[in-house]
């Protein structure tokens, strides 16, 4: 049956179920979102249907948008960097391990994904709260407690951890070109272990590291649960602003427009990354 259809038609046919689901569950809502962002809200907060760019205009001219964006990007960038610094050695260890526990190590590294993000945040609250393990410990040794939740520090810690499993996975997948023989070859050519790492391992893993950083960054910009719960209502980023606009002030056009804005920004980063990748491999 398939040969009669031709390869191209068969390909489309095979993709059809997934395309249908994506159109219904992703494409259509996105269109609705785009449409909503073109409506306006009057001074009483009543939705005024229409085709206007005025919501975008007020977003673009508002100083808050830029401050929120900067905070969001900084939070995501720091989280991605912390996650990468912590995950890179771990991923390298797992990748190079010849132990029979290698699979176990890899599973342990991504096990947090098995737990809901909300549950993990609650775990962090228990650890970092005023009477949490960290502060109890500090008090025990006679030090004064520090505020680690309901502020930027807490969100930063929680977000860094929450993107780590993705970072490890991306790194492990990207280490494909790495081969222990290369480091051995470097050693026989007189390279000390650290030198071999910088001259061989590091450049070969750089594309994977960049990819992992970007994924963590994108996840960090769009993260909602961690900033919301660990920020305790005192940390404002783009995602929490969208949520508040949609559920508290019920300004749907503003929420939609801000969503579209975040979407475009992330798309830009992804495009920049693929352009960079092409440049690196050519």
């Amino acid at each position, binding site marked *: 049956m398939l040969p009669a259809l031709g390869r191209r038609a068969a390909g489309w046919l095979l993709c059809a179920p997934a395309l249908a689901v994506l159109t219904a569950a992703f494409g259509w809502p996105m269109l609705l979102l785009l449409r909503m962002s073109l409506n306006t809200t009057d001074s009483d907060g009543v939705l005024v249907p229409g085709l206007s760019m005025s919501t975008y205009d007020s977003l673009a001219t508002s100083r808050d948008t830029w401050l929120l964006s900067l905070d969001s990007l900084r939070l995501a960038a720091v989280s991605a960097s912390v996650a990468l610094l912590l995950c890179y050695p771990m991923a390298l260890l797992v990748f190079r391990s010849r132990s029979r526990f290698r699979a176990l190590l890899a599973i342990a590294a991504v096990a947090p994904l098995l737990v809901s993000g909300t549950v993990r945040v609650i775990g962090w609250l228990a650890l970092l709260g005023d009477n949490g393990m960290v502060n109890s410990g500090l008090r025990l040794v006679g030090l004064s407690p520090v505020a680690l939740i309901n502020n930027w520090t807490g969100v930063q810690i929680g977000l860094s951890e929450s993107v780590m499993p993705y970072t490890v996975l991306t790194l492990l997948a990207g280490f494909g070109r790495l081969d222990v023989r290369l480091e051995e070859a470097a050693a026989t050519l*007189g390279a000390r272990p650290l030198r071999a790492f910088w001259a061989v391992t590091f450049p070969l893993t750089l594309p994977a590291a960049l990819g992992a950083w970007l994924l963590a960054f994108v996840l960090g910009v769009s993260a909602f649960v961690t900033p919301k719960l660990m920020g305790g209502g005192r940390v404002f980023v783009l995602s929490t602003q969208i949520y508040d606009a949609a559920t508290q002030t019920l300004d749907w056009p503003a929420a939609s427009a801000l969503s579209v804005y975040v979407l475009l920004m992330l798309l830009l980063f992804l495009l920049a990354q693929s352009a960079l990748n092409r440049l690196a491999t050519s």
Partner: protein
Amino acid sequence: MSGSVLMLDRLNRSYGGVPVVQDLSLEAPGGAFVALLGPSGCGKTTTLRMVAGLDRPDSGRVMVAGRDITALPPHRRNVGMVFQSYALFPHLTVRSNVGFGLRMAGVGRSERNRRAMDALGMVGLTDHAGKKPRQLSGGQQQRVAVARALAIEPALLLLDEPLSALDAKLREELRVEMRLLQRRVGATALFVTHDQAEALAMADLVAVMQSGRIVQLAPPEEVFERPATAYVAGFVGRSARLQGTLRLGVIEAGTLQLRVSRLPPGLGEGSPAHVFVRPHRIRLLATGASADNVIEGTILALDYTGETVRVVVGTSLGQVPVDLSTNDGAWHAVRPGGPVRLGWRADDSLCFPL
């Protein structure tokens, strides 16, 4: 050239209680090309890795040029190694690959480039200096790996199955090329191979390995003509293998009496024995002709290979391979199913205890 450049002294290595290399000793004179020959799992690669410092022996010593380097890490050994997979750095150009060792040694850029180009010149690849390894063919990559190992002017060159990833014809070309190159630079080389033809063709000394031990260390001709054990005879070259019992100085096999000119020491009267005969030492006997050993049989198969015809003869003692030269047309008379008489000299019977 005087003295031994490489000396391995009773090396032992085991993995998880399983001995991989056992009491292995070896001496390689300066400038020699030494082959470690054996089937996979015989410990030859582990031995090579212990010389490179990539693996540590449980006991024993590795000496290079009279210096004990057993405890030195690989980067302080000045030993050039060519890996089976070549292990070229994919992110560096061919020139940077070859110059890598010099860069690690702190040689300045211009000097480094000059010496890298010299090394590339030796393997005829100066035109490809600016390319990345993946842009080269397998044979070219292999030569870059050799140039990279030689560029550091190593005390010792190690080669781990350096030709195994190449196709048969290229392999034979590179055998000659590498041999010439090694002679030219005068490096002492130790190479690992499971290919007995490669070992015989390239090496000055062949160390045949079995289960972590060297069972024979000798020049190729000696390994082939006077194998030390039945294992060596079976591993190096093809043979007819006949079984019998020693009775009154001959090997009794079925109704036949096989004459051998050298009996292995310690083979007692009535002991079972193996007799190996190389296929090219067996002749087809014309009617009435005789030989020290004569056996009758039927032609089972003919395999024309160009220089020779490989004939398989079925006899009362099993199948016997015979190589006939195609220099004259005599082999045309041989037909499958036809009866045939085979003969060989007592000198050509290699006898081993069973």
